[in-house]
């Protein structure tokens, strides 16, 4: 049998990788000295780790009996790993600790892998070392890059300016009038940001839900011709950088916008700034999130069994009664869901309030200005982030409770031959009346945003020009070769590079996690699932603040590098990869993995040879989503960018804030085209499954996470 020998070789490979990097790679970021060299120079704190690796090698070499070897691995590697964690906690707490370098990562990975292999040898995880090591590995990384920053955020919120712990400062910050003030009810002054955020989110969610319902009803229950077009419109927000709509609105309704100019020219009404503030942000958000509400609702509306409506009609309910008493109540869980999803999107939104908010402060922008503004108050940022996180978590828990399992009751396994009931005419005309102008409006906004890149100065000089594109993307040739002269190239290449690094990692970890969650049973699985899904509920600004707080000091000091951006992309988009993977995995017969196992394949082989080929649609989806998300996200990265690592979105925001709309628009349009191309390439590279029969298509990932 080759099995045991192969397992031993995997074990040796891990130990060798750990020992090799302890010997050769720099343990600390500042110096080139490895862990072993440091110990040699008298740094005894690293001795247990070096000794632990040696002991692991000895154990792997000397012990034959699998249970004893397993126990030795678990205790030695587990001990060394916990020691490493303890060192990290101490380093994090002490000022001026040295940040870890590249050598620490393989050592930590090797220790985790050894614990996993040891547990598998003792019969845990069905004796599968790959599964055991993967579960531990994913758990450790998710803990480090999702849970730890949030915990750090929590503790920071309870620290005052001097770093001392206490609740007084927190309560003071939480209760401040800037957050909870209600002046707007009685005077012209603004209300607190919490009320602004909630008011905006509730209004926006209500509008999105109603519009989404109108669209969903038109698509499923009427003979409307251009249904496909309506569905296509829903893809737009996924590939649109978050402020394109804001820009379009400014070009239309801003002081120099078309509408204002027309009014001034025709009626002599002076231009106003009404678009900057609550109305503008609201309109922009409704544009941005209606498609999301639509995607949530279409599934539910389609799921309402036509048979039930037919049944209602056979007992002589008219069309209106059928709609009001049967169809609508059946859609209620979907309506609740759509409302809450839009609500969370709205409170997490950063791009629209920053572009259109004017002096309307919402939590996300307030957090941003606490960190980057003149105030620079991390404690305040943490407190506000905590408040925002609280809102989001409440919304998500309400959603979970409201939905339960009811959402799917309409989707039985049986075929349903009924025909959906025709809408009562007043409902139908209302839907048309609301939805179609809105769809037209969307097209106009996008057309505006696109056109804005091709005129000299919007509002003053409509001479067609390519100057903005030239300014952003000029290429000059010189005797020394090509010069990327455009102002945008730096951030463009950086964005593409980081997104291209993050996408395969996100998809890989996401699909692996989905495999572990659906196909394996292990203790603590529920907690594991919760942890991987957690970042789904966390608004981007909160993640941004949490990452800054957690990773700008030792032991993991990556603020200002590209690494923190990649990490942020991975762990923000992970839930979508996991969900896409789980949805597809649910359609793959579990016996296939088991057949592979009984044929001698270990977990890793089964995963790569059987699961991955069958998961191609989900992989493509996860790749596309994480790539596109990495290119369009702004809320989290705006905290994490640095001059060396500027992202496309933050560069665009900068241009917008400077009023340089032409370049911003040219850049946004280029991004949209690039993303469409990337989607095409990914589909081509990953390819399709070869099955010879039709499997149900994978659920495409949609923009359901907070922006």
């Amino acid at each position, binding site marked *: 049998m080759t099995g045991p020998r192969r397992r031993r070789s995997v074990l040796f490979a891990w130990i060798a990788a750990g020992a090799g990097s302890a010997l050769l790679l720099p343990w600390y970021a500042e110096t080139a000295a490895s862990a072993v060299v440091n110990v040699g120079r008298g740094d005894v704190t690293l001795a247990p780790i070096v000794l632990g690796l040696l002991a692991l090698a000895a154990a792997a070499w000397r012990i034959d009996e699998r249970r004893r070897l397993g126990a030795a691995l678990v205790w030695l590697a587990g001990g060394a790993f916990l020691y490493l964690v303890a060192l990290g906690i101490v380093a994090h707490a002490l000022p001026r600790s040295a940040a870890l370098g590249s050598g620490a990562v393989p050592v930590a990975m090797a220790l985790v892998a050894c614990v996993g292999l040891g547990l598998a040898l003792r019969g845990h995880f*069905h*004796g599968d070392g790959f599964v055991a090591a993967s579960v531990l590995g994913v758990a450790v990384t998710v803990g480090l890059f999702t849970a730890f920053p949030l915990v750090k955020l929590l503790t920071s919120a309870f620290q005052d300016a001097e770093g001392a712990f206490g609740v007084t400062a927190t309560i003071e910050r939480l209760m401040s009038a800037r957050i909870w003030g209600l002046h707007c009810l009685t005077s012209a002054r603004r209300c607190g940001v919490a009320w602004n955020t909630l008011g905006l989110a509730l209004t926006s969610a209500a509008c999105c839900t109603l519009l989404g319902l109108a669209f969903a009803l038109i698509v499923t229950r009427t003979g409307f011709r251009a249904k496909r077009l309506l569905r296509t419109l829903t893809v737009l927000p996924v590939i649109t950088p978050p402020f394109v709509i804001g820009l379009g609105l400014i070009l239309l309704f801003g002081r120099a916008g078309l509408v204002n100019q027309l009014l001034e020219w025709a009626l002599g009404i002076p231009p106003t700034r009404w678009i900057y503030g609550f109305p503008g942000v609201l309109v922009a958000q409704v544009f941005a999130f209606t498609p999301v509400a639509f995607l949530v609702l279409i599934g539910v509306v389609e799921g309402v069994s036509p048979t039930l409506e037919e049944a209602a009609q056979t007992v002589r309910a008219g069309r209106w009664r059928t709609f009001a008493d049967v169809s609508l109540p059946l859609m209620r869980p979907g309506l609740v869901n759509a409302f809450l999803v839009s609500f969370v999107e709205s409170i997490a939104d950063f791009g629209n309030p920053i572009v259109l908010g004017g002096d309307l402060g919402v939590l996300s922008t307030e957090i941003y200005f606490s960190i980057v503004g003149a105030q620079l108050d991390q404690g305040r940022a943490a407190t506000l982030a905590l408040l925002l996180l609280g809102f989001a978590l409440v919304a998500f828990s309400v959603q979970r409770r409201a939905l339960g399992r009811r959402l799917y009751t309409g989707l039985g396994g049986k075929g349903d031959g009924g025909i959906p009931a025709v809408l009562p005419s007043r409902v139908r005309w209302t839907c048309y009346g609301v939805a179609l102008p809105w769809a037209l409006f969307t097209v106009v906004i996008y057309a505006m945003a696109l056109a804005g890149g091709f005129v000299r100065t919007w509002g003053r000089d409509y001479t067609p020009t390519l100057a903005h594109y030239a300014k952003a993307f000029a290429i000059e040739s010189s005797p020394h070769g090509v010069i990327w002269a455009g102002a945008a190239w730096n951030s463009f290449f950086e964005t593409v590079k980081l997104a291209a690094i993050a996408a395969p990692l996100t998809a890989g970890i996401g699909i692996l996690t989905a495999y572990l969650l659906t196909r394996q049973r292990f203790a603590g699985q529920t907690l594991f699932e919760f942890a991987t899904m957690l970042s789904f509920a966390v608004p981007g600004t909160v993640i941004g603040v949490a990452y800054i707080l957690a990773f700008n000091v030792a032991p993991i000091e990556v603020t200002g590098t590209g690494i923190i951006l990649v990490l942020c992309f991975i762990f923000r988009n992970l839930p979508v990869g996991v969900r896409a993977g789980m949805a597809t995995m649910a359609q793959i017969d579990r*016996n296939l993995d088991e*057949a592979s196992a*009984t044929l*001698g394949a270990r977990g890793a082989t089964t995963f790569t040879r059987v699961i991955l080929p069958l998961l191609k649609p989900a992989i493509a989806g996860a790749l596309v989503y994480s790539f596109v998300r990495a290119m369009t996200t702004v809320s989290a990265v705006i905290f994490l960018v640095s001059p060396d690592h500027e992202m496309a979105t933050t560069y665009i925001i900068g241009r917008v804030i400077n009023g340089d709309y032409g370049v911003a628009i040219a850049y946004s349009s280029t991004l949209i085209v690039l993303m469409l191309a990337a989607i095409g390439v990914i589909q081509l590279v990953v390819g399709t499954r070869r099955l010879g029969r039709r499997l149900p298509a994978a659920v495409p990932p949609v923009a359901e996470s907070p922006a």
Partner: protein
Amino acid sequence: MKAARIEFRRVSKRYGDVRAVDDVSFVIEPGTLVTLLGPSGCGKTTTLRLIAGLEFATAGDILVGDVEVSALPPAERNVSMVFQSYALFPHMTVLENVAYGVRVSGRSRAESTERARAMLATVGLGGLGDRLPSELSGGQQQRVALARALVLEPAVLLFDEPLSNLDAGLRRHMREEIRDLQQRLGVTVVYVTHDQGEAMAVSDRIIVMHRGVIAQDGTPRELYEGPASAFVAGFMGEANRVQGTLETRDDKTGLVRLGALHVRLAHRDQSIGPVIVAVRPEAILVGPPGGDGLAATVVKAAYLGGVVEYTLTSELGELFAIGHDVAAPFAPGEAVSVTLADHGVVIIPTRG
């Protein structure tokens, strides 16, 4: 192929409070075909999956050959399995499916392809290697699954209800083929089914399971003719359970009174007094009224072509009988007389 012995020593598998397999012990001799038989939820499939390593026992030891395997993953157990759904990899051709096991155990592509080709020829699918599984009929898919399991020359081959997705005619054919192949290759086979006819046709031995424990373990004949409990009697073919009285007993047999009838049966260690007797439907001989038989009345008569099924009432209660005289069957309402055949009547031992 070296057939291996399988042994369960006090094996249990619990899911929470549910005992799927409860303190089960048995030995399967090398080179035999043993069936795990029972109704759904009896623990037979769990037992099979415990052998394969797809489930891990909560307690007890499992031996395959001389190796204690209960902590080993499936890949290290030298056990192959044919699944109820066949579980053919839909993205691989038939040949790739069969070659998969050889390939992942580290052999060269050439060797694995060659062995897969040979095995496909053995199961009679020589020309179909380039097809996808979805392009084959159910019976062909079954053969691919079989070839894929056999190509590794496992010490133990496991079947989980392999025939349940085939139609009746093909089922009979395939079960003969499986039995044939097992005899030819001399491999140890554990076979799970809920169909007692299938079990009796293929098995050297049958282990009947009920609620996670072994109800009875023996050859098909032992189980049919000497069921250890009413459950086994009812599960191994149909049986009428009737109340009787053991009146006298000698060394091995005893005289049992069943209403007006007296029969001499193996007493099976039951003491004088009331006993429960299982009477197979074909052992109830239905004749015209009179004579020293048991008086009964026909309630229902169903003509099935080869036989007639009767439901009768008598002082023994309701009886289910099979008549072979299809030319002149009795009609509902007719009075008949019932006698018992020599075979197919047995005392069911009760504990205590």
